[in-house]
C-alpha cells in the first residue's frame, strides 16, 4: 500500500496508506459518524464533490454486494449507478471481508470505480479538526508524487446538475398504478424511488431543471441532492410555480396536490416558500440524529447527510417548522399550515440508517 497524505486547507496533514484507486484527489472533507452502510453512502449522490471521513474505525468488514440492476433499472443494493463521493477516508480498513452477500472487497470496488480510499488515519482527530474549523477543502496526495492537483471548489458549484438524470424516466410499480408522482431528481437516492414504488405509485423522475408543471401528475416529490441549494435556481422556480398554481386552485375550491421533500428537497421547498438557507459549520452526517416533531412528544432517530440548513425564522407566516433537531435546534423539516406540503431535512428512506420515519412516505401517498 502506498503512503499518502491528507492535506487540509489549513495546512493540517494526516498520513496514511492508500487502499483504493491510486490517484490524487481534491474535495470537501466531511465526516460521517455512521457505524455501517459504506456501500449506500458511497453511492449516495449527495456526497458528490466530497471526501467522506468515517469516524467508525473498522471499515470494509462485510465487503460490497453485487452491483446488480433490477428490471426497473434500479440497482439492487446501491443508491445510484456509481460511487459519488470523491474519496473515502478511514482508520482501519479491513483487507479481508466476510459476508454471504458480498461479491468483492471495498478496495476492489474503489479501484474499479477509480475512487481513492485511504486508511490508517486518526479519523477521530480529523473529525475534531473539522468540527473546530468547520468543513474544509482537502487533498489526498501520494507521497511519491508532487502536489500538482488544483484545490477543489465546493460552494457555488452546481453539483445537482452534475448528478441529476438528463431526461425523464418512468418507473412503474408492480401493481396497477393509480397515482402518478413527479420526482424531481436533484441527486435522488434509489431508496426514495423504491419507497414510492413499494407504495404502488407511478414515479416520473425528471431532471432537476425540468418544468414538471407541464406534466400530468398527482403529487410532487422533491429529492435529496448534493451541494449548495442556491445553485438550484431553476428547481426553486418550478416549485414556486407549482405552489402558486395550487394556491390559486385552492382559492377556486379545487383539490390541492400534495408535495413532499427530503433533504435538498426540504431546502428547495423552503426556498420556494421564501425562507433562507445557511451553511452549517460541519453539517449533519450520521445515523443517530434525534429530531422532534414540533408541538408533540414524538421523537425520531434519523439518518442525515447535509451541510446546509433552513433558517426557520425566515419561514413565511403560512409555513411552520415540522421537525426540529434535538441536539442543536436546527430545522429538520417544514410544513404548510393549510396545504398538504411538507418536507424533512433527514432521510425517511434511510439506506443507510434507521427506518423509523419511513411512515412519512405513507403519509404522502395517502394524500395523493
Amino acid at each position, binding site marked *: 500500500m502506498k503512503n499518502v497524505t491528507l492535506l487540509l486547507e489549513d495546512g493540517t496533514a494526516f498520513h496514511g496508506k492508500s487502499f483504493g484507486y491510486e490517484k490524487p484527489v481534491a474535495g470537501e472533507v466531511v465526516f460521517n459518524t455512521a457505524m455501517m452502510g459504506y456501500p449506500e453512502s458511497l453511492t449516495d449522490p449527495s456526497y458528490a464533490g466530497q471526501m467522506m471521513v468515517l*469516524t467508525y474505525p473498522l471499515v470494509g468488514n462485510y465487503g460490497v454486494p453485487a452491483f446488480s440492476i433490477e428490471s426497473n433499472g434500479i440497482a439492487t443494493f446501491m443508491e445510484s449507478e456509481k460511487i459519488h463521493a470523491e474519496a473515502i477516508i478511514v482508520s482501519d480498513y479491513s483487507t479481508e471481508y466476510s459476508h454471504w452477500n458480498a461479491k468483492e472487497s471495498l478496495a476492489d470496488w474503489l479501484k474499479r470505480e477509480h475512487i481513492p480510499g485511504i486508511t490508517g488515519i486518526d479519523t477521530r482527530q480529523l473529525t475534531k479538526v473539522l468540527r473546530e474549523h468547520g468543513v474544509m477543502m482537502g487533498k489526498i496526495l501520494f507521497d511519491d508524487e508532487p502536489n500538482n492537483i488544483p484545490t477543489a471548489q465546493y460552494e457555488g458549484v452546481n453539483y445537482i446538475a452534475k448528478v441529476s438524470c438528463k431526461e425523464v424516466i418512468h418507473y412503474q410499480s408492480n401493481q396497477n398504478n393509480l397515482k402518478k408522482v413527479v420526482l424531481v431528481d436533484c441527486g435522488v437516492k434509489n431508496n426514495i424511488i423504491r419507497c414510492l414504488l413499494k407504495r404502488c405509485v407511478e414515479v416520473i423522475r425528471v431532471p432537476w431543471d425540468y418544468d414538471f408543471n407541464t406534466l400530468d401528475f398527482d403529487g410532487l416529490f422533491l429529492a435529496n441532492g448534493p451541494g449548495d441549494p442556491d445553485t438550484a435556481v431553476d428547481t426553486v422556480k418550478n416549485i414556486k410555480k407549482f405552489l402558486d398554481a395550487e394556491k390559486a386552485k385552492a382559492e377556486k375550491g379545487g383539490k390541492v396536490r400534495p408535495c413532499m421533500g427530503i433533504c435538498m428537497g426540504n431546502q428547495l421547498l423552503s426556498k420556494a416558500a421564501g425562507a433562507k438557507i445557511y451553511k452549517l459549520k460541519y453539517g449533519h452526517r450520521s445515523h443517530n440524529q434525534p429530531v422532534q416533531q414540533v408541538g408533540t412528544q414524538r421523537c425520531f432517530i434519523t439518518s442525515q447527510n447535509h451541510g446546509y440548513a433552513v433558517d426557520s425564522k425566515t419561514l413565511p407566516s403560512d409555513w411552520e417548522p415540522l421537525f426540529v433537531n434535538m441536539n442543536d435546534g436546527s430545522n429538520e423539516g417544514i410544513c404548510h399550515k393549510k396545504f398538504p406540503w411538507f418536507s424533512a431535512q433527514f432521510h425517511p428512506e434511510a439506506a443507510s440508517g434507521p427506518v423509523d420515519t419511513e411512515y412519512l412516505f405513507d403519509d404522502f401517498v395517502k394524500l395523493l
Partner: protein
Amino acid sequence: MIDSNIKKVLLLGSGALKIGEAGEFDYSGSQALKALKEEGIETVLINPNIATVQTSEGVADKIYFLPVTPFFVEKVIQKEKPQGILLAFGGQTALNCGVELYQQKILEKYNVKVLGTPVQAIIDTEDRELFVKKLDEIDVKTIKSHACETIEEARKAAADLGYPVIIRAAYALGGLGSGFCDNEEELNKLAEKAFSFSPQVLVEKSLKGWKEIEYEVVRDRFDNCITVCNMENFDPLGIHTGESIVIAPSQTLTNSEYHKLRALAIKIIRHIGIVGECNVQYAFDPNSEDYRVIEVNARLSRSSALASKATGYPLAFVAAKLGLGYGLFDLKNSVTKTTSAFFEPALDYVVCKIPRWDLGKFRGVDRELGSSMKSVGEVMAIGRTFEEAIQKGLRMIGQGLHGFVGNKELKIDDVEAALKAPTDKRVLVVEKALHSGYTVDQIHDLTKIDKWFLQKLQNILNTYVELQEKGAIQHVDVELMRRAKVQGFTDFQISRAVGLEALIDPEIATKLVRELRKQMGIVPVVKQIDTLAAEYPAQTNYLYLTYSGVAHDIAYENDRNSIIVLGSGAYRIGSSVEFDWCGVQALNTIRKNGYRSVMINYNPETVSTDYDMCDRLYFDELTFERVMDIIELENPHGVIVSTGGQIPNNLAMRLDSERVPILGTSAKSIDNAEDRDKFSAMCDRIGVDQPAWAALTSMDDINQFIEKVGFPVLVRPSYVLSGAAMNVCSNQDELERFLQLAANISKKHPVVVSKFHEHNKEIEMDAVAKDGEIIAYAISEHIEFAGVHSGDATIQFPPQKIYVETVRQIKKVSKKIAKELNISGPFNIQFLAEQNHLRVIECNLRASRSFPFVSKVLKLNLIELATKIMLGLPFERPEKNLFDLDYVGIKASQFSFNRLQKADPVLGVDMASTGEVGCIGDDTASALLCAMLSVGHRIPKKGILLSTGPGKQKADMLRAAQQLIEHGYQLYATGGTSRYLAENGIENTLVHWPSEEGQQPQALDLLHSHDIDMVVNVPKNLSVGELTNGYKIRRAAIDLNIPLITNSRLASAFIDAFCTKSLDDIEIKAWSEF
C-alpha cells in the same frame, strides 16, 4: 410531567453475586438510586449484599440488609409504606420477587405502584408460551418446538421449518435420542430412534452456527424508542452470551441487516409495552437475513451494563427516570450535557467483552461451554482496531495471558476435537490451530466463528511471526513496531517474539523494547468516549488508550494533583464487588479532599468504572506497561495500590522501581509481607508464631519436611490469589499428584508446604494503621474451623465465641506486625487460634475482602480513614469499639454450584464461593437466619439428611440433631451417622449411600421425592476416596435445589438459629436503626 404522588420508592437489589447475576446490578441499582435522589424522592433499598456500593451510606436513604424474598419485602413495605417500587434493577432475583409480590397481590394490598415496565409485560417475556404468543401477534419469529406423535408429523414439521432441524425425544434426560438432521432421510432415521425413547418427539429448526446478536432498547411512556447499542457474539449460537466473547458494535452486519434487527427490536418493545430498558437477543442466519428472537429481558441485564460502559449511555439512570414518567426528550445526554438523551450513541472504537472463568477451582466440573453460564466475571477492552481490543481483553482476564499470541504453549492432543467442543480455553485453541497451520476456512468450518474474526486473529499471528523472523529487536523497523502496537502487542510480547525475553531478564527485555519504541516516537494516545464520535465537543472524563491515533483528546494539567487508584480488574473467585467498594470509597475520599481522582479499571460490572465516580476514568489495562503509560501522562501526586486487591498489590514493587510515588505503606513493606521468606524471618524476629512451613524445590526436600511436621499439609505457590492452586494433602499419594500441577503454575516462586492445623479457629484482623501504629481495627471470627477458605467461611463480627485472652493476643501481635512493616493504610492479618495459641497464616498490606462488611457493621468507613492516612490528611481517631456494638453482623457465602455442572459442591482451602451477603441482627440467630436465607438456604419443613463425617464433627452435630427432633423434623442418616445418633438416643431413619446398591431406602430416592429438604453432608477428609463417596448425594442436592451444608459447625449454627428463632420474630430494622 412526573407522578408527584411518588415520594418514596423501594428498590430491590440482586443479593449476593452469583454466576449469571453479578456486580452489574450494583452498578444499575446505584444509577437508579442516583436518578431518584436527583428528583428528591426518598429511597429504600433491600439488598443483603453488604459489599456493594449501593448499600453504602448516602446512596439510598434507607438500607435493609435482608433477603430479597416476598416475605421480607412485604415486611419492609409494611413498615416503610413506599408509593412506588422498582423491580428492573436487581436482576432476575428482584424481577422474580416482584412478580411474586404482584401475583400474591401484596403490591395491590399496600397500594405500591410498579414504576417502569408493568409486571404483566415482565410476565409476558418470562413465560415462554406467552412470549411466543405475544410475538406471534406481530409476526415476529421466535424459536418454536413442534411436538409430534408420529414420524409423518415430524416430517411435516421439519418440512415447514426448513432443514436443518434438531429433533429431541420429549421427557428424555440427558439428550437421549436427540440430534441434527440435514434432510428427510436423516430425519427418518433419527426420528425412529427418538420415538423408541419417548412417545413424543420435538422438532425445532436448527440454528447451529447462526450468529447471536443483541440490541439494548429504551422506550419511554410516550412511545419514543431508541436502540442504544447492538452487540455481536464472537461465538455462534449455542454458547450462552455470558460465555461468549462479545463485540460492540456488530462487525459483520450490513446496514440492511443492522436496521432490520433494530426496527424489529423497537417493534417488539412497543408491543410488549416496556417502559425503561430491555434487551432483545436474536439468532441471525449467517447466509441470509433470516432471524429468530431468542429472548427479551424486560429489565436491566449484564448486557445493558456492558452496553452502558461500551457507549457511555447511562441506561440504568435513564431507565429509572423513564420509570418516573419522564420522556426521553426531557433528559440530557449525560456525557455531552448539552445534547439530548434521545439519541443513539455513535462509537468510534470497538469494544470487546471477554468472560472470565474459574473452572480450575472446581473438582470435577464440566468445562465444555454451552447454553448455561459458568463464567464468574468479565472484562471489557476498548481499542480502535479489533486486534488491539481483543489482545487487551485477553490480558485483562488475568489468567496469565500476554494477549492472543506470545503465551505459554497450550498442550492439546487433538486440535480438531478441541475446536469442535469449545471450553474456557476456546480462544487459545483457535490460536493453536492457526499456529499449526489450520486455515481460517477450516477453523470456520469447525467452529462457525465468523471468518472476519478469524482473519483478524490471523493478522495478529502474522505480525507475531514477522517479528519472530526479525530475530532481534534492532531489526524491527518503525513500521512493523507501529503495526504491532496498533494490533495491541505489549512490549513484552514484542520482546518475546524477537527472542529478547529468552536471553535476558524479561523485565529488562520489556524495558528495552519500551525505550526503543519511545525513541521511534511510538506512544499511545488518550481518547475519550463521548457517545457521538467527536461530532459534538464533550467534557467527558471517560478515557482509553490506543495506538491508532496521532493526538490526545485531553490536555494534562501537570499540577501533580492527581491521585491514581488502581482498580481490581475482572470479578473472579476471590476478588469481586468488595474491592470495587474499596476503590469507590478511596475515590470519594480523594475527591472530597480536593485532589483529582483517577481510576484505572476495566471491569464493566463495576461502579468504579462509572465515569461519574471519579474525575478521570481510564477504562484500560492494569498491566505494568499501561499503568506506566498513564502515570507518565498524569504525573500524579501519588498512586494507591492497596484498595484493589491483589492485582495492584502485585504491581507495587515494579512501580516503585520506576520511582512512582506509592501512597501509604511502602512497596518494600508490601514485598516483605508478600514474600514468605521475608515475612517468616520477620515473624521469627518479632516472636510471632506461624504454622511450620518451607519453600521447597525438590521432592526430597518436601518429603523430609513432612517427616518432621506430619500430614496433613497445605501446599501452595507464593504470590497467590485466593488460594489459587492451593491444596491440602492428607497423604503421600495426594501430595505427589498435586505437586505436578502446582509446579506448572509458577516458575518464579518455589512451592510452599506448610503444616495444616485442624480444628483451629480462624480469626481475621482488618485494620488501618498510620506509620506503624494501628488507628482502627475490626476482629472477626469464622464460624467454621480453619480449613474452609476465608472467602467461603461464614464470618461473625464482632466475634461471639473467642476468648478475651485470644483477643488480647491478636491485638498484641497485630501491633507488632504493623510496627515492624511500618504500615500506613489498610491491612489484614489472618490468624489460627488453637485454644489461646495464635499462629499467623498470612498478612496482606492492602484492604481485604471483609473491609466493606466490617466497615458497615462497625459504621466506620475504614477505607475512608485509610485513604486520608495515605494522603497524609488530618483524620479523627475513631472512638468506636467493636465490643460496644449491640448487634452482630454475619457474612455468609453464596455458591453457584447449580451453574457448574458436575462440580463437587464441597468446600476446602481453595475458594469456591462467587459472592457473599452480610446481615445484621440483634442477636446471632437473627443475623445468621437472614444471611443464610439470603444465600439461598431455606428453613426445612420435613426431613433432614445427615452424614456428619468424622467423629469430632459427629459429636459437634449431636445437639443440633437433638434440636431438630424436638422441633418435629424427621432425621435421615447414612450408616455411621445413623449408628452414632442411635447410640446417643436420637431417633433417625437409616438411609443408604448410592454405593450400597439394592438396600432400601436409598438416600437419592428420598432426595428425588423431596422427602428431604435439607442435606448436611460433611466429608471425613479431603481425600479422593472420601469425596467420591458423598459426591452423588451432594451433587443431587444441588441439582434438585435442596439446600446443602457441608460443614458441621455451620450446620449446627444454622439449625440452632431456626430452631430457636422464627422468621416472624426477626425485627425488621434498617441499617441506620442498629
